[in-house]
């Protein structure tokens, strides 16, 4: 049992180290290799659209993402509350709090 536990703990350190190193590399690839230089002209239009495209994908995956499936659950109530708060031009913190509160409420009631 203790051997097994030891093996698991070592596995965790491997994951921590490899994921950490990979993330450091991914985050620094642009700044280290291309840092300080302007992007090529034809890329600027592409890069400007990266934020809307990725943010929309993050909304979708965080709201209905499951383990290789679409999961519709209480998070949707939270997203609905966020939409209402945004339409009311609420500040960011209120939007986020409304989403969390609505989701928590639905979980409490169901």
């Amino acid at each position: 049992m203790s051997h097994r536990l030891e093996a698991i703990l070592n596995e965790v350190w491997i994951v921590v180290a490899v994921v950490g190193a990979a993330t450091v590399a991914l985050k620094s690839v642009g700044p280290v290799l291309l840092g300080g230089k302007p992007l090529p002209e034809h890329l600027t239009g592409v890069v400007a659209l990266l934020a809307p495209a990725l943010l929309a994908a993050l909304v979708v995956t965080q709201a209905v993402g499951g383990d290789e499936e679409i999961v519709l659950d209480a998070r949707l109530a939270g997203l609905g509350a966020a939409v209402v708060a945004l339409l009311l031009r609420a500040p960011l913190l209120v939007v986020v709090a409304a989403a969390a509160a609505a989701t928590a409420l639905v979980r409490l009631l169901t």
Partner: protein
Amino acid sequence: MSSSQYRDGARKVAPIAVAAFAFALSFGVLAPTSGIETLEAIVMSATTFAGSAQFAAASILGVGGGVVSAIVAATLLNARYAPISVSVAPIFVGSPARRLLESQLIVDESWALSKRPDGRYDRRLLVGGGLLLYVCWVGGTAVGVLAGDALGDPSELGLDAAFPALFLAILVTQVHSRLELAAAVLGGVIALALLPAAPAGVPIIAAAAACLIGWRRS
């Protein structure tokens, strides 16, 4: 003058930092249940500094999914940082070591909020905002693993719904033109279509391809 701009970045992400702290807290609380010990959890937050990847790795380790799948899933989830880091590459100056260090403060939130209305990115906003998020992220993780069970189950607080709301709120500020709207819709549709078919992370990087509709526009 320059320091006030770093402060502007911190001020801009302050509302998000609250959510990030709470999210890190829940990572700290959940980590031990997946076999991730105190120091491991804190080191992971300090080096990976990306919520979804850390949660994915923890949950895979927790169900005995193995080292390789935990690493692959977390790395796929963070693969979006390659195009993101290219998009902000021009604003990082100085020695390669300095660029490497500062680039670690790139997270979805600091990146998105440092985009100015003219489409360029502001390094001081990104670094100032990223630093505050980093402190909250590592600090929240530490408090979570140390305080542990006393804090209860974070999902009851609806924290997981805070993030889609957060990204939606930031997205709204990013869409000014039809082309940006088209990129957002296309990105969302690609992610939705791939969700049932691909491992976590793949839908997000595939959605990044939506930005190619901006090719040869300027």
